[in-house]
């Protein structure tokens, strides 16, 4: 069975390490916060100016002056700090944030990512994504393996305008967990019940399958 969005987030959460500062993008990445392993401390950075982002407020306690980068009302935690956008991106560009998780429309086998524009159709803007992918040492992309028509989104070359080049190292899709190196996707884990053949069929970019590929564990 292909993973649900929640399960993609859950698998990504396993990659978090103790004492990491983490930036979660909008969409599936936001869900990662719900699955943090119990034994580690991580701090979420929201690029609109918050470190130590807490859960959504209790109903009735929403504060218009306290939102995350997705414009959702959030809360602070003990030890949180608030700051301006220049300081926020100083943290990001200066590589003080250890991990960035974000969504993508396309990823290529050399680690390029496209997620901000479909020429002539949709231009929402890159927001902070270009700063994040150009700076982060660890980038995990959370995405669907194929589009609605079944076409692969893991490509030899991205067809859409790029967000960043040679930057993505790990991808977690509804079908698999893959690493990007040597100009190829390396299949590391399969979604439970998904066959290697299905993943090969869904991947346009060069896919390396070495030995037995285990199923993800949750």
């Amino acid at each position, binding site marked *: 069975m292909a993973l649900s969005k929640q399960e993609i987030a859950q698998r990504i959460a396993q990659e978090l390490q103790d004492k990491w500062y983490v930036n979660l993008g909008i969409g599936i990445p936001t869900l990662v916060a719900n699955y943090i392993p119990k034994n580690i401390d991580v701090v979420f950075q929201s690029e609109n100016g918050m470190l130590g982002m807490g859960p959504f407020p209790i109903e009735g306690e929403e504060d218009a002056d306290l939102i995350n980068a997705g414009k959702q009302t959030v809360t602070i935690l003990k030890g949180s700090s608030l700051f*301006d956008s220049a300081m926020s991106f100083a943290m990001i560009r200066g590589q003080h944030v250890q991990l960035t998780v974000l969504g993508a429309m396309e990823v290529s086998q050399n680690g390029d990512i496209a997620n901000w524009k479909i020429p*002539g159709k949709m231009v929402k803007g890159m927001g902070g994504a270009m700063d994040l992918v150009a700076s982060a040492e660890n980038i995990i992309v959370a995405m669907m393996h194929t589009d609605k028509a079944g076409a692969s989104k893991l490509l030899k070359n991205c067809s859409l305008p790029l967000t960043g080049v040679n930057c993505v190292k790990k991808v977690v899709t509804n079908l698999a967990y893959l690493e990007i190196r040597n100009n190829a996707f390396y299949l590391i884990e399969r979604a439970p019940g998904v066959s290697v053949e299905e993943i090969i069929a869904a991947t346009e970019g060069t896919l390396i399958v070495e030995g037995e590929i285990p199923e993800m564990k949750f």
Partner: protein
Amino acid sequence: MINKVVKNAQEALNGVENGMTFMLGGFGLCGIPENCIAELVRLGVSNLTCISNNAGVDDFGLGLLLKKRQIKKMVSSYVGENEEFERQMLSGELDVELIPQGTLAERCRATGAGIPAFYTPAGYGTEVAEGKETREFNGKMYVLEHAFNPEFAFVKAWKGDTAGNLIFKGTARNFNPMMAMAGKITVAEVEELVEAGELDPNQIHTPGIFVQRIFQGKDYEKRIEQRTVTPKS
């Protein structure tokens, strides 16, 4: 201490003209200068270039200026919450320059800080870097980005004093402090205007030197875009 107080938005926007370039603080609808935007709508100035991280929503924030076609060009990082914006952009009525959010923030700061240009890794290898100088430092590629040159900056603070000192609240701070630094004329509207001396000098986010005009704002709506809550248990 130099007194920066003006009576209201009308007096604060004295000198605003068609064709000018403005910076406007805020992230989404959080921390936007509501009073100044309302006055810009009332004045009906047009052909504006607006530097602002977002473009408001259809019926609030900069969306109000877009609806009245007062904006010629938007310089933003994310504009995904506004259908009228998307329509004007795709039809070519509106000129749009999208730039990475961190680059936008740093360019605002650079403008106010007398830094004409700096190098950033953001956007290297993408269409954002097209036509720009790129350069390698320590084995990594960077793009040269420049300061802006806005006539006015409009910012919104939580508290301000008569000397122009500002304190922001929560994530409503966002772009406001850097834009305050960058305006040739910086107008600050505040939820609470107090006498000089009432704010702790150690806790001021924007020193008064950057603010030319300050006024007590009114009727703040402070609209929430995404009301996400945890149900009471």
